[in-house]
């Protein structure tokens, strides 16, 4: 059974919140000075320089306090390497597959074939864009049911040929729209989760950005589940949690802390098996290094899992999920 987490470091959370408030104050002063200096006060330039230096200092010292909200910001960073970039870099001769054979091809989900370190593998990954235009094209990484069904079709193909499945996960959520509901979003997710618990090939999962609830889990049930250092994994987005609990989506920062969604906390809960360190400052500063780190972490696990007899693989997968949970016994 899972162990309970230690108490949150509320003092650090308060310090971080206070620093951020001060930083916002400095930014407001700078903006005000800029507006005035445009007209007639050239001496404001010096003041602005001083304020900017103070802001930079604050930012530096804030880095020493890791907060859940920083992790959320890093996980959602627009320059963070996208799941599809990991897939295309990790697999040689990547060949994309399209469509669920039932309704349409969902651009929010990538599926395809390729070679990982000389071993054939099938990969699935939600697609986020690098800019607004790309994001609109791929629905901000939020798959429809047909996206999950495409992923399942690819996984079934892997099973047919005995190839491992590699799932790279970075999605805010399954798309919450009326058409998605009509086509059975819940059914698609439920089916994927169910099938992945007994897929007869190794399944390796890396949460690289946002692990957004059921929409993530629908491609994230596996034998080895790894997580990048600044990725987050959560049952509900912090904004949604704050809206439900306190009727105020603006309190997302608090909700992020409460949900214990950082890689360190998720690993402590036994939900992921390993944390992959990111390049200093975050994966967005060095995509190549982040991809290399993921490759290094996957290699030994891929080998070890591929050598397990199928029945043993399935027995371990069942036992792994069977053990997750925390309860007490009332007398």
């Amino acid at each position, binding site marked *: 059974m*899972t*162990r*309970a*987490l*230690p*108490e*949150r470091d509320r003092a650090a959370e308060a310090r971080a919140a206070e620093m951020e408030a001060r930083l916002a104050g400095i930014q407001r002063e700078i903006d005000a000075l800029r507006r005035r200096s445009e007209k007639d006060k050239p001496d404001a330039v010096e003041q602005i320089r001083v304020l900017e230096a103070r802001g930079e200092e604050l930012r530096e010292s804030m880095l020493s306090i890791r907060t859940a909200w920083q992790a959320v910001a890093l996980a959602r960073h627009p320059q963070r390497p996208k799941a599809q970039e990991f897939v295309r870099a990790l697999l040689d001769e990547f060949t994309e597959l399209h469509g669920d054979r039932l309704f349409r091809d969902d651009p929010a989900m990538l599926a395809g074939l390729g070679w990982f370190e000389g071993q054939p593998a099938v990969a699935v990954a939600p697609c986020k864009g690098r800019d607004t235009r790309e994001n609109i094209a791929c629905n901000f990484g939020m798959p429809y049911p047909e996206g999950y069904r495409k992923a399942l079709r690819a996984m079934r193909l892997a099973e047919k040929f005995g190839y491992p499945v590699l799932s790279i996960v970075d999605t805010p959520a*399954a*798309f*919450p*729209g*009326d058409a*998605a*509901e*009509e*086509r*059975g*979003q*819940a*059914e698609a997710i*439920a*089916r994927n*989760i*169910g099938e*992945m*618990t*007994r897929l007869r090939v190794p399944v390796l999962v890396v949460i690289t950005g946002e*692990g957004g*609830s*059921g929409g993530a*889990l*629908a491609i994230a*049930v596996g034998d080895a589940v790894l997580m990048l250092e600044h990725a987050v*994994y*959560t*049952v*509900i987005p912090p904004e*949604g*949690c704050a809206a*439900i*609990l306190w009727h105020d989506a603006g309190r997302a920062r608090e909700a992020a802390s*409460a*949900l*214990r*969604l950082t890689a360190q906390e*998720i690993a402590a*809960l036994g*939900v992921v098996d390993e944390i992959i360190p990111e390049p200093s400052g975050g994966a967005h500063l060095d995509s190549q290094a982040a991809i290399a780190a993921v490759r290094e972490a996957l290699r030994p696990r891929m080998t070890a899992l591929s050598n397990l007899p199928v029945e043993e693989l399935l027995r371990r*997968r*069942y036992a792994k*999920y*069977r053990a*997750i*949970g*925390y*309860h*007490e*016994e*009332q*007398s």
Partner: protein
Amino acid sequence: MLNWLRRPKHGRISRRDIPAGLWVKCSRCGAAVYHRDLERALKVCPKCGWHHRLGAEERLSITLDEHSFEEMDANLASGDPLRFDGYREKLSEARANTGNADAAIVGVGGIEGYRTAVGALDFAFMGGSMGSVVGEKITRVAERALQDRLPLVIFSASGGARMQEGALSLMQLAKTSAAVGRLHEAHLPYLSVMCDPTTGGVTASFAFQGDVIIAEPGALIGFAGRRVIEQTIRRKLPERFQTAEFCLEHGLIDMVVPRPELRGVLARLLRFFGAPRAVAPEPAAAAPDGEAQPAPGEPGGPEVACP
């Protein structure tokens, strides 16, 4: 006819008795209904047909043969693994209000003589949300079905995964799905009944994994919440969006069954899928003279299993 379930353990409080002679107002149509009439109609409004929500105990008591239920793991209670502010208080409140330790009751019982593993979620307990305990109980009752070769019937009524247990709640989707998956592999029937409301993580796991999926009339069934969808698509949704009838039309469920017919439909399906009989076929659930048959598994009870 309600409240016959044996609940001797843990000093559970019984549901508040409504004073005799009280009239209740149907929250749907506003009609005043004599409470006895409402109870007799299984809480289906005699005026408008609205199926009012049932607690887990009520659900089992109107579904199962009298004195056939043997509860499992009643003592499992949620802890506070995340140290989530206010969670322990909410749990205490829900325990006091429902008299139950958490949002699911599971065990083994009979439906018109067919012995089955059974579970019911309780919306009155924190919105029927699935945290570690609900996930564990659904998993255990599925494992019990596998071990004894019994069918499984689960009545869902849930807002989804329980936020206060974070990613642990999310993992219950995988845990319960894995357990239900073993029933599929063992060719054991699993009937899923969706009651009002069944949404979020519960629909995204065991509720949509039934061999046959039944819903109660008017039940709200869907993955995402109505408000979230309306904000996303910037449009108002029609009234009947995400109702049981809507899901039936879109091919997501097998049937919509009014509450008074549900027990009969379940029994018919259990028979079709070869469920074992606990007792000799009898039309009435309760022996008229009050003499109960020995429950299966109890001394004198028959040893039975799916073929």
